[in-house]
């Protein structure tokens, strides 16, 4: 079939690489080593510096396909899809992985159709099957109640998006060498039907709960909007951001971008603190892969305690202020 090598699709913001790119390199390096093949990374954007490209090599890429042009300043799926499609058709990688971010989850399906490839969403683990060399893609489904192992036996490339923040970034080794392939920009990649008009920051709290190391979430147990004040304080003192259960969002205590769970976001922070959250199956779907989970709930039977590494059965209105005070004196 002639498809060879492992590719990661790096992500950047105005030329600056995002952390997920290095996590993908760590995944990709492991797969490439098992296959005895090369690892390459694709970077599409504008103002991508030599240092950024070097960094990808230092962190494990044997080659970098760089597509750097003002026309690609903003992520427009149609344009980026055309670029990636052409690169795949020319260089024929065997495996292509991207982050399960809004970027990867928009771009990859668009490309998968164009190159007739299978795509597995939001994998938590990737491996190579012994014997066949096929990519094994493991992902949760049905609200995290099952884990499915998925293969793409025939079509190439094998494509997957990978849930971010689950593993460490690939280590930097400044002695590593790699090749940089400067890909010439083609005007035909640009879809005139779509225009990027700008960005709008959300008012109020930081909404990037997926990029945070610490998420402190409040739920129905907080009783009213004002009580999120202490959740915000706790998040702030731990250098984290505020999350919420659906009940808290539906009652208007926090806005939707903060919602964690099946119909909200999936987060994998180093620390997740659930305050006054029962731990419904739908909430767990969004946070149970967090590295460490702490729960504070007045009901000792609350299901959240089953997934917690540490729990306090108590009244949040007593526990959180006491906690804040201790942290203050710290």
């Amino acid at each position, binding site marked *: 079939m002639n498809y060879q090598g492992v590719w990661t699709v790096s992500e950047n913001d105005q030329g600056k690489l995002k952390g997920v790119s290095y996590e993908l390199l760590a995944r990709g390096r492991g797969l490439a080593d098992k296959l005895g093949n090369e690892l390459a990374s694709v970077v599409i954007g504008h103002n991508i510096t030599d240092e950024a490209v070097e960094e990808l090599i230092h962190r494990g890429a044997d080659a970098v396909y760089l597509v750097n042009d003002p026309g690609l300043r903003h992520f427009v799926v149609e344009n980026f899809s055309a670029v990636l499609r052409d690169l795949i058709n020319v260089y024929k990688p065997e495996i292509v992985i991207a982050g399960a971010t*809004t970027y990867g989850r928009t771009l990859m399906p668009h490309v998968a159709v164009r190159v007739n490839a299978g795509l597995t969403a939001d994998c938590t683990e990737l491996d190579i099957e012994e014997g066949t060399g096929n990519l094994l893609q493991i992902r949760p489904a049905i609200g995290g109640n*099952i884990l499915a192992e998925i293969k793409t036996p025939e079509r190439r490339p094998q494509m997957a998006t990978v849930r971010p923040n689950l593993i460490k970034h690939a280590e930097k080794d400044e002695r590593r060498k790699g090749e940089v392939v400067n890909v010439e920009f083609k005007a035909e990649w640009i879809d005139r039907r779509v225009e990027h008009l700008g*960005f709008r920051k959300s008012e109020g709290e930081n909404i990037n709960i997926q990029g945070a190391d610490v998420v402190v979430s409040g739920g129905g147990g907080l009783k009213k909007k004002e009580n999120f004040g202490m959740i915000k304080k706790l998040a702030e003192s731990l250098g984290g951001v505020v999350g919420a259960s659906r009940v808290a969002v539906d009652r208007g205590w926090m806005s939707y971008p903060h919602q964690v769970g099946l119909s909200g976001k999936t987060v994998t922070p180093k620390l997740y603190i659930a305050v006054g959250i029962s731990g419904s199956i739908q909430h767990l779907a969004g946070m149970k892969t967090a590295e*460490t989970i702490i729960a504070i709930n007045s009901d000792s039977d609350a299901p959240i305690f089953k997934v917690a*590494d540490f729990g306090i059965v*108590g009244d949040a209105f007593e526990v959180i202020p006491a906690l804040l005070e201790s942290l203050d004196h710290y």
Partner: protein
Amino acid sequence: MNIIIPIKQVPETGNVKMDEETGTVVREGAASIINPLDLYAVETGIQLKEKLGGKITVITMGPRSAEKALREAISMGCDDGVLISGKEFAGSDTWVTSYVLSEAIKKIGDYDLILAGERATDGETGQVGPEIASFLDLPMAAYTSRIVELNTESVVVERLIEEEYEMLRLSMPALLTVVKEISYPRLPTLRGKQRAKKIAIPVWSKDSMELDEANLGLKGSPTRVVKISTPQVLRNGMVIPADDEESTVRAVNQMLDFMREKNLIR
């Protein structure tokens, strides 16, 4: 403004039970509902229709029983439904599902907008929307949280990404996948229910569209599920009480120790 909305019927997750012995999901008895995230697409469509006129067609690919989902959407205010059903479609992955839905959409024709849910709560791939856009070569906005402006030529939307909102202008026809923030689904009306009960819903088989049979069902699907297992979710960490001042202080101190041990605070 003619709108097509692909909706999926899913098991109600609230009712998903695990068989403790076999560790598998018990599907029997779990009610089937419209994918909750598709209700936001349906609501958005109805609001646009109320403002601009036109009609809404809901389509689904699934077993015969998925007809119920279509009738439910019609009872909310959608106009027509099309059910795509047949054993050839069984086992389709997202690539095949979007291929078939795209062909169905071509056959329906005469549309300005396609609205899809962000993802289905069973498979949770979120791939079918973008894949339909790719098959039909329609401009797309994924994670749409607001329609800012809309006319027959173009639509301006905001999409919710990790750090902020992005504004895009798409020329029509276009496809949007929507997130929950965009609307609040209404309940079916009595009149809607009556209409939904009576309306004829055509069932399309593989012969109703121009489909390449090699691309259908399990055998046409690039991806294969080879194994299902139940993840170990229980951590059963230490749980301590805080029911008076003294035990609260103790609990808080233990929590801080725990966090220090894990290097979460210094």
